[in-house]
């Protein structure tokens, strides 16, 4: 046995023996960040929501009150919350419908270079600026944009007009309609749905599909009884992304659509233009509570095993 006396060697030797010290060095910075910066912000946010704004002076009154919370539960705010949650749900369902077949294809039918190329193609949009992509979509969907131009070219202007005349989802043009907003949301968050589903399908061995067929299961039965239940954690994991990201987004509703407020937009305007920090803080708790409920449900579906 040799013992080295260089300071570095002695340091490693003493670290090797002190397990607690090692853990402290490893976790010190992240814990400080999570507890101090992140947890602290949340606590401060919660505290703020129990203050109120003085409507005359425009200053924050720091005596505890439930008055701000009463303002949250007005019809107008509930409508905003309802619209946001509805959009988040619709975007999630559409992302599953579009993302699942693609994820399944990548996982089951490609390998090697083709697989890498497909995964890369899904990922590349995430490397470009989110704002640039949203504004590009505004141009694509505008009244003078490529979609209406192309639909004119193939004689579908009537169809486009009919769609835009529909209540709720329609509007003067695609870029100023709820439908357009929905399309852009699905486009922007789709990669977050595809990748976890692909990972989940990847983990289903081929022999499971063969076993199901061997036991008499037709392809549809095999999908329903074997593939779907085993891919479900991936679907749930992906839906957490699409749902929460839609819930908190305030850029897309500003750029695309009919300018009706979303939760994120309402929070943004309360803390910015209106300067009503307590109301903004209270409103922030709507997506937090909705997500808490959603995550509880997703956990029951085993979503976190596929993250």
């Amino acid at each position, binding site marked *: 046995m040799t013992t080295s006396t260089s300071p570095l060697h002695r340091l490693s030797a003493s670290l090797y023996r002190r397990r607690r010290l090692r853990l402290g060095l490893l976790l010190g910075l992240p814990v400080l960040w999570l507890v101090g910066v992140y947890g602290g912000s949340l606590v401060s946010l919660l505290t703020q929501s129990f203050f109120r704004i003085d409507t005359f002076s425009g200053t924050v009154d720091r005596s505890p009150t439930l008055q701000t919370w009463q303002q949250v539960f007005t019809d107008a705010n509930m409508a905003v919350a309802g619209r946001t949650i509805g959009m988040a749900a619709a975007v999630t369902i559409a992302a599953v419908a579009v993302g699942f077949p693609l994820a399944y294809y990548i996982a089951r039918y490609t390998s090697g270079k083709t697989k890498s190329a497909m995964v890369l193609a899904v990922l590349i949009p995430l490397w470009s600026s989110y704002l640039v992509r949203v504004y590009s979509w505004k141009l694509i969907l505008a009244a003078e944009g490529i979609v209406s131009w192309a639909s004119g070219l193939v004689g579908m202007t009537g169809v486009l007009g009919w769609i835009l005349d529909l209540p709720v989802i329609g509007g003067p043009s695609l870029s100023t309609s709820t439908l357009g907003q929905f399309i852009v949301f699905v486009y922007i968050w789709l990669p977050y749905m595809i990748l976890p589903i692909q990972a989940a399908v990847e983990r289903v*061995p081929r*022999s*499971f599909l*063969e*076993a*199901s*067929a*061997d*036991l*008499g*299961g*037709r392809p549809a*039965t095999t999908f329903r*009884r*074997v593939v779907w*239940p*085993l891919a479900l954690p991936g679907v749930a994991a992906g839906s957490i992304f699409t749902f929460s990201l839609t819930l908190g987004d305030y850029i897309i509703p500003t750029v695309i659509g009919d300018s009706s407020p979303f939760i994120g937009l309402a929070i943004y305007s309360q803390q910015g233009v209106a300067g009503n920090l307590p109301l903004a803080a209270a409103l922030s708790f709507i997506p937090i509570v909705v997500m808490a409920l959603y995550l509880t449900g997703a956990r029951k579906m085993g979503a976190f095993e596929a993250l």
Partner: protein
Amino acid sequence: MTTPSTAIRFESVAKTYGDVRAVDRVDLDIADGEFFSMLGPSGSGKTTCLRLIAGFETPTAGRIMLHDSDVTDVPPYERDVNTVFQDYALFPHMTVADNVAYGLMVKGVDGAERRRRADDALAMVHLEGLGGRRPNQLSGGQRQRVALARALVNRPSVLLLDEPLGALDLKLRQAMQIELKALQREVGITFIFVTHDQEEALTMSDRVAVFNQGRVEQVGTPSEVYENPANTFVAGFVGTSNVITGDLATRLRGAPGPFTVRPEKIRLSAGGDVGTEGTVTEVEYLGMFSRYRIDVGEQVLVAVDQNTEAHGERPARGQKIAVSWPESSCRPIALTADGETDEQEPV
């Protein structure tokens, strides 16, 4: 024409992947109720043949008959065969009982009947009362039994087993060999058993097909394959064999025709019909018996002798001894193209 007692018939079946001939024009007849083993090294085409019977693969050429009907293009879910997979392929999101009842469920058998038959199948493999567990709560040997029950509950006309004992340890494997054989006798279903373990194939099977490079080298009962190997590949793969050719063959029997002698037929003494002298170059003590390498000049022979010590001291390395064997132990043999005689553990 196939006779009614044929369960599976291969008519010059071939399967190629690009340039690779996984199965090279194979003809096979597997009788109804038979325990039939497909034995061969990895890549010899035995598993592909099993997958062709199951329907997971479609042959490039040829026909596959199942009980007189052509199933070449029938999908797996319409074939009256079931498979026990090498990795068991139990569905992890279902209980053991639901796994076993899966085949009945997809065929629309009603709930009560399904449960009764699943329970019976679990009892048959001695897993009573474990129906409520998940596959990941079972040991390897138990999972293997569930896989067996899941296949047998459908009462298929043919059961396919793809190296099902490969993942088990030696003791358990030997116990399962006996149990599988007993089970097959009990249910009377044709078992087609794929293995690379020649001992397993010999102990369990009614008949064995020895595969090599996509071809069937020999089909026969275990003793036919062992005692009368068709060529040097079979002689080398199924047990160990001394392939005696050329000068040594001429010296011993007056003809250069190649023949084989199994190591256990060689006596370490003079007095047999055929004999010579040699030097012991290696002695391996293996408990019940010892294995000797004896240099007789032209070739090195392998002999095994029981450690009874009935003839006094065991020969030692470097010792000059006489070896001999009866004429009836000499089997004429065809040399395979590669002339390969892999060293295998003797049976």
